[in-house]
């Protein structure tokens, strides 16, 4: 069980969902997050929903970072949040990024679609990885607050 004092410990599960073989972004994400002091459990490419969840449960990760690059993201990510609940993973952060749908689309529409599907953040391929690190750390801290709030007056 993570404690608030240990606030520099960030742990995330990373992988590319479905039958997707795009490995380059995954390798770069792993390296950048690692260098930013985030503990990365990298499942690589072609990861199923349950493999993500297994790894998150096993390692007690704060967040699952799902990549989908090849266009089947809409199908492959369908029901992931529900599956997390089913498996008892109630408060894990879900991030998703990449070329999430088929074709060139307006990013706003994609964001809306995936937020509705229960993701906490939806990122375009153009996302700045420095921003990502910042959001991730902030979100993780906030999530912990929500889970184990300090005295309100603090």
């Amino acid at each position, binding site marked *: 069980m993570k404690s608030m004092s240990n606030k520099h410990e960030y742990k995330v599960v990373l992988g590319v969902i*479905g*039958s*997707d*073989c*795009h*490995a*380059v972004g*995954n*390798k*770069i994400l792993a*390296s*950048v997050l690692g260098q930013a002091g985030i503990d990365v459990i990298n499942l*690589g*490419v*072609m990861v199923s929903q349950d493999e993500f969840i297994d790894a998150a449960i096993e390692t007690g990760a704060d967040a699952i970072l799902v990549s989908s690059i*090849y*266009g*089947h993201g*809409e*199908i492959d990510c369908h029901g992931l949040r529900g599956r997390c609940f089913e498996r008892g993973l109630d408060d894990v952060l879900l991030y998703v990024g990449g*070329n999430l*749908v*088929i*074709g*060139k*689309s307006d990013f706003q529409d994609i964001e809306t679609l995936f937020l509705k599907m229960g993701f906490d953040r939806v990122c375009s*391929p*153009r996302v700045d990885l420095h921003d990502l690190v910042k959001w991730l750390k902030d979100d993780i801290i906030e999530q912990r607050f929500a889970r184990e709030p300090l005295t309100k007056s603090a």
Partner: protein
Amino acid sequence: MHPDSTETLVNQRLADKVFETERNAVLNTWPTGADVNFREGVRYQLDLPVEKQFSAVMKAADDAGRTLLQPRAGVALLQEQIALLTDLQPYCDVLPTTIDAYTRHNRYDKCANGIARSREAGRSLMNGFPAVNHGLQGCRELVEALDKPVQVRHGTPDARLLAEITLAAGFTSYEGGGISYNIPYAKSVKLRDSIRHWQYCDRLVGRYEEEGVRINREPFGPLTGTLVPPFVSHCVMILEGLLALEQGVKCITLGYGQGGNLVQDIAAIRSLRELGEEYFSAAGYSGYQLSTVFHQWMGGFPDEESSAYGVICLGAAAASLAGATKVIVKTPHEASGVPTMAANRDGLRATRQMINMLGEQQKPAGDDVALETDMIKREVRAVLSRVFALGEGNIAEGTIRAFESGVMDIPFAPARANAGVLMPVRDDNGALRVLDKGNSPLPDDVLAFHRDRIAERAASEGREPSFQMVIDDVNAISNSRLIGRPL
């Protein structure tokens, strides 16, 4: 259906009985397999007019020194796919059908779902055409609706059923290979299995050949598309070419994905063809038909469409100046998603303009091209002779052992079978060099050449070469540069 994945692989023509037994199993893996009848497929192929035969069209282009244009294109539904290719047809010379990623992993059940959901959505939710699910009749409807040869383009480690269906349906070219459609496309498929499965595909093509039907075979040159030094992919091309020839394939198109440095790219296409001839004839094959294909930049693209045109056009120029027989064309939508017909057509038009304007000009023949050509040849010979040694004359086993030991190693590949230690980086001119040779057996003087070139760059950037430099190179073209210089 799986041949035993522990038995030793030999590079030998599959025995008829083995092939027949296996075929029965393969055709049974999905209901649409039942429609395939080889004899009938041969008759269908023999009836195709010459202008729908890939091998004939490639030969004519090669003889005339022309560079043919081919897009990539695949959507979920048959009528949509017909419409798409019919619309693209006037802008290109040969047609593709790009297969979706579920089919590539033999997940025909998922395809069925993807097709159904695409029907509901009224638009393709799949990244390609699920040919197995559409079956023989569906594929024939497609071929018959078109006036140009159609190739299957995919990325399938076990592409046996796909081959049976599409070749019987009148597709006349088949992309892929046991290495090039495994290491960049799969995670845990054994190389032993994929090579064996591709021996089957090649044997099927060989059988068509024996019946008088020449199917074109195209090993997939670009691999991961990301900073792959020419020698790395050339080795794969030659091994897959040898494996295919052994199964009776007679028409091979060797591929290469643009690196970005014009001199190196020209040298790559030249050395590829010359090395092909060298190795294939040294192995005793003859009477085969050889050509080359140049892929416009296969790594990350810039987001802006106008910038993407710059990348597309540089690729077109390189293909033309290198004298490739075919160029695979990208689109201004590349960075975003599967392109619309219009975006695909626009990429073709820009490429056509460039190829038409450059095609009849002098081909560069400077000393720099000669130097790079020579360098690539020496690299390839060094690696391949180690592969042959590892296999003790059996290149199938040699290949497997070469990957196990990192003698062959493809940058950025997802496959567990790949060492992933070899690391490329650009030099000060943007040519691809080897930063970490991993376990590849490059000669010392060649390595010194790489080191010196990289040192030049390091000096001009005032930083040490490192993985950060590699990441910068991976992102460079997306950021409208070639070399990932610090800002």
